[in-house]
């Protein structure tokens, strides 16, 4: 298909048959003939993108089978996911796709300054996307939505296991360290010396603790807001429920509802578009007292957190790589000679946009 791409006047493609006869016939100008009619950089980029297609197809495909194979999946508002924020990020990425393509056009036309302006804009939009993503992540983290146990405080069911987790956290709150930094150093020391006794022999003192729940119980009503006073009463009742020897599964559902209520079916759509927390109007104890950090029940929440952070995390890593590429490109003079580089960076960036086009509805709207 590319017969005109080569000009080999003699001995078409059997270079091995050269045997010195090119000396007799003057110059044989051999030219590089690409297997596909495009530049090497672009070919490599497309090959890379085709591997990326398979990578993200596997990721999104496993998300789809996990999500539809799951016995229950949380609603977006159960996990503090805000659709308007996701839509805004989609818009940001679309804008950045346009700006990178305009940077390419400007560079092709040798408009160096204009190309740089579009490139800077692309970089800023990519950064904005990451910033919004970070804000979204922080909203999840503040509600204890992590994929794994040490920080993750998500329980699948409001059962007795959940009750025992709440009990464990309440007991820990009765022995809160006064100085969290000192407590962290002490725990490192314990790990280093193998045991608390070993740490004590090495001169480490156990950090001082105080009873945070008692402190709350004894706080004067004047120092608390009305919401905090009501929350304190709820907390006292919850303690009775989880410590009661004859607790029932339904009691645990009540506890879970007080700690972090899930919005009702009717209330979760179309009512709180403006809420940046991405959630419900209802306030749980974890919202009233952020230090409480009690385990919460989100049916299907663990699998949701794993897939959400894996998918958006891999996408965010791709965005970061794109930003690095743009930063490198910004160091160059973006003229027609660099158009190939910009085109390849742009192809990559459009692909990142493409992945988000599928991720946004799958994660936020399904």
């Amino acid at each position, binding site marked *: 298909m590319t017969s005109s791409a080569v000009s080999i006047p003699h001995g078409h493609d059997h270079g091995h048959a050269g045997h010195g006869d090119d000396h007799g016939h003057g110059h044989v100008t051999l030219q590089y003939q690409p297997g596909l009619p495009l530049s090497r950089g672009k070919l490599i980029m497309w090959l890379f993108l085709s591997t990326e297609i398979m990578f993200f197809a596997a990721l999104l495909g496993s998300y789809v089978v996990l999500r539809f194979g799951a016995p229950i999946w949380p609603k977006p508002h159960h996990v503090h996911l805000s659709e308007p924020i996701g839509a805004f990020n989609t818009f940001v990425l679309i804008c950045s796709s346009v700006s990178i393509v305009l940077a390419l056009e400007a560079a092709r036309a040798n408009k160096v300054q204009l190309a740089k302006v579009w490139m800077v804009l692309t970089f800023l939009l990519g950064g904005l996307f990451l910033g919004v993503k970070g804000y979204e992540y922080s909203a999840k983290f503040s509600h204890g939505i992590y994929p794994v146990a040490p920080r993750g405080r998500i329980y699948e069911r409001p059962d007795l296991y959940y009750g025992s987790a709440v009990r464990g956290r309440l007991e820990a709150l009765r022995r809160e360290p006064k100085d969290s930094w000192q407590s962290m150093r002490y725990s490192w020391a314990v790990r280093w010396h193998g045991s608390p006794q070993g740490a004590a022999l090495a001169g480490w003192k156990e950090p001082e603790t105080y009873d945070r729940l008692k402190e709350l119980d004894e706080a004067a009503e004047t120092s608390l807001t009305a919401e905090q006073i009501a929350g304190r009463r709820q907390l006292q009742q*919850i303690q009775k429920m989880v410590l009661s020897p004859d607790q029932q599964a339904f009691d645990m559902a*009540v506890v879970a509802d007080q700690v972090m209520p899930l919005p009702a079916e009717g209330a979760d759509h179309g009512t709180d578009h403006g809420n940046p927390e991405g959630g419900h109007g209802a306030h749980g104890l974890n919202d009233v007292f952020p230090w409480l950090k009690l385990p919460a*029940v989100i049916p299907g929440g663990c699998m949701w957190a794993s897939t959400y952070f894996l998918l958006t995390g891999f996408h965010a890593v791709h965005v970061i790589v794109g930003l690095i590429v743009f930063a490198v490109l910004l160091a160059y003079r973006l003229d027609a000679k660099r158009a190939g580089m910009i085109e390849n960076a742009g192809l990559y960036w459009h692909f990142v946009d493409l992945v988000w086009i599928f991720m946004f509805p799958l994660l936020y709207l399904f």
Partner: protein
Amino acid sequence: MSDHGGSSHGPVTRSGESADETLHHSIEAGHDGHDGGHDGHGGIGKYLFVFLLLCGLTTLSFFTYSAAWPWRDQPQVGWAFMMAVSCTKAMLVILFFMHVWWEANWKYVLTIPAAMMALFLAIMLIPDVGMRNRMVSQERALHMARGSDLKLLEQAAAEDPLAAQAH
């Protein structure tokens, strides 16, 4: 799309950039019909048009989330609709922003095998991963969330027994 690919212009590229330029210009010549007479094969006007289309399509899929969406009780309709919208958006990005519309036939060599692999990957996940909840151990079923848990939580939220206890 295919009639634009392997045109008689002979997509010719050498490793140099200058050849790239001639390639674009020679191929552009064949597209004046739907181009509306832009000089670059993209043209800012065309990119902005695609941009507006993308924004409009995003709004469309966001519409499924609004109260005005008529198939609220059948989520499958919304899912199918959103996937159709996403595929349309992806097509627009690939064809115009990634310039595939103006590329030669090599695009099929790269994209079709990758797309097939992607499809097979997803299909192969279904038996192992997607159906894993059909047969689970008792231990796992004990900890697995159920629809009844959600009902329990909603019931707890509706009844507010703490308030009842307090008074």
